[in-house]
């Protein structure tokens, strides 16, 4: 049976991590359908149809789905689910919100944040902030799985799957969307950036993040933060890298003034190369860093920014 990938999108295109979810789905079955539901989402449906490995796109036009309220989206997915062996979503803030609601309505368990597909019913997922890896086997008829995007190489584009229009279920009236306060940034999105520069409590203030941003801009990097920096109000919540924030795995991760709590390491230890800049040479971050430099970050970071400039 086919696999249904439920895609989050901004009407113009599906989120980048849908390509990772499709990659995971193709490891389960060759027949992969993508659900694109929303209002005026034709362009997003086209972007899904272009993903390699997608065999069909289901497009649903219904004002009820414009803002991705779980109470409204879940019944639509539940209606479609009996035609599929699996429902797959990326484990981002949309997938984490919607998928468990779908699972419970189907009376099935959920495999949360799978990092590997062992077989169609068996998955590896991190537990205890990634300090242990559990291999779990689902006995449910329909398997609801969220996948960690950084662990599945995104499929390419160039495909041309057919797009089928289907009807929606309308709104349930349980919840309504009021608005959003989104961080505005020209920088690459944290979870898909090739390079990420993150600051921690050692930054001392939100103002001091300017030196992180200057380095990030020279490198074309995304900017992240530890929980301590977010809790202290230095930067917004969507900067947080860690167990309960975002999981990143860039080619290069530069941790500045971050001690390296387990919860932070959980969000970045799959990065290809890790650099740590910290004044405390005993900081646990040095235990995972490929390159460490002990010293005053307020001196080292601007120096690094200048040095990178010279390349």
């Amino acid at each position, binding site marked *: 049976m086919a696999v249904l990938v439920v895609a989050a999108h901004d009407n113009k295109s599906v989120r980048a991590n849908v390509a990772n979810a499709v990659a995971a789905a193709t490891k389960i079955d060759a027949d992969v359908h993508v659900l694109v539901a929303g209002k005026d989402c034709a362009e997003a449906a086209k972007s899904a149809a272009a993903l390699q490995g997608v065999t069909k796109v289901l497009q649903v036009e219904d004002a009820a789905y414009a803002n991705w309220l779980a109470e409204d989206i879940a019944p639509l997915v539940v209606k479609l689910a009996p035609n599929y062996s699996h429902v797959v979503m990326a484990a981002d803030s949309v997938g*984490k919100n919607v998928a468990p609601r779908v699972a419970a309505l189907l009376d099935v368990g959920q495999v949360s944040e799978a990092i590997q597909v062992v077989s169609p019913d068996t998955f590896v997922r991190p537990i205890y902030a990634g300090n*242990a890896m559990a291999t*779990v086997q689902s006995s449910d008829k329909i398997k609801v799985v969220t996948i960690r995007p950084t662990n599945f190489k995104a499929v390419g584009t160039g495909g041309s799957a057919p797009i089928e229009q289907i009807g929606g279920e309308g709104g349930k009236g349980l919840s309504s969307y009021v608005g959003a306060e989104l961080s505005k940034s020209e920088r690459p999105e944290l979870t898909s950036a090739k390079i990420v520069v993150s600051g921690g409590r050692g930054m001392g203030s939100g103002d001091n993040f300017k030196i992180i941003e200057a380095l990030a801009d020279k490198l074309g990097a995304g900017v992240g933060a530890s929980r301590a920096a977010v809790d202290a109000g230095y930067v917004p919540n969507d900067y947080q890298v860690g167990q309960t924030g975002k999981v990143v795995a860039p080619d290069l991760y530069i941790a500045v003034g971050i001690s390296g709590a387990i919860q932070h390491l959980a969000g970045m230890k799959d990065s290809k190369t890790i650099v740590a800049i910290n004044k405390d040479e005993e900081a646990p971050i040095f235990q995972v860093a490929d390159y460490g430099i002990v010293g005053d970050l307020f001196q080292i970071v601007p120096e690094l920014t200048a*040095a990178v400039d010279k*390349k």
Partner: protein
Amino acid sequence: MKVLVAVKRVIDYNVKIRVKADNTGVETANVKMSMNPFDEIAVEEAIRMKEKGVATEIIAFSAGPAQCQETIRTALAMGADRGVLVQTDAELQPLAVAKLLKAVVDKEQPGLVIVGKQAIDDDSNATGQMLAALLGWSQGTFANKLNVADGSIEVKREVDGGLENIKLKMPAVITTDLRLNEPRYASLPNIMKAKKKPIETLAPDALGVDVAPRLKVLKVEEPPKRKAGIKVKTVAELVDKLKNEAGVI
């Protein structure tokens, strides 16, 4: 309005966990256990609602072995009024916990259920959403700020791009994110008082809930270890390594 909070007993977040030698799970014998940190935030939020006169009674729910009494006592010491423990030694997965919670919600009829967004042991991030689904209620996940007003609740949510505001019809299920509040410590007098607060103990069978796990854990392993690298002395050396050794800039 009654508020029900769910509290899970987990390995304390400061403990470095050890995978069992036979790969069947994680060592929990003789390990310090505490309330899941996100659930502390849930308890705190309920107490603040009571202090503001929005909530009238706070019920702390837990499910698991007899020792979960201690976790409930912690919630009672913080300020919850009474406890409900569904006692079982069986492995409980999110769907089973959601079903147990639903059974207790059906009985207690709270106007709001607040749970942690995720437990720091299995990291599933599912129980609250599942409960909302089973009840047919609205859900406000990853809550950063709550405001109860006239039969509805405004929820500011932490989402990928920043914050999102939604309005939910009550009753509703809320899952807490880190910035919702900073939980209080229980004072000694309140810890003493909590010993006298009632805890009702129920069995899953009595609630008519089948808690059989849907996911079979085949094995639990250590993650691949990352080797510590080298320390460099200068920025020039670092840039050289990144360019010529790692090839990442």
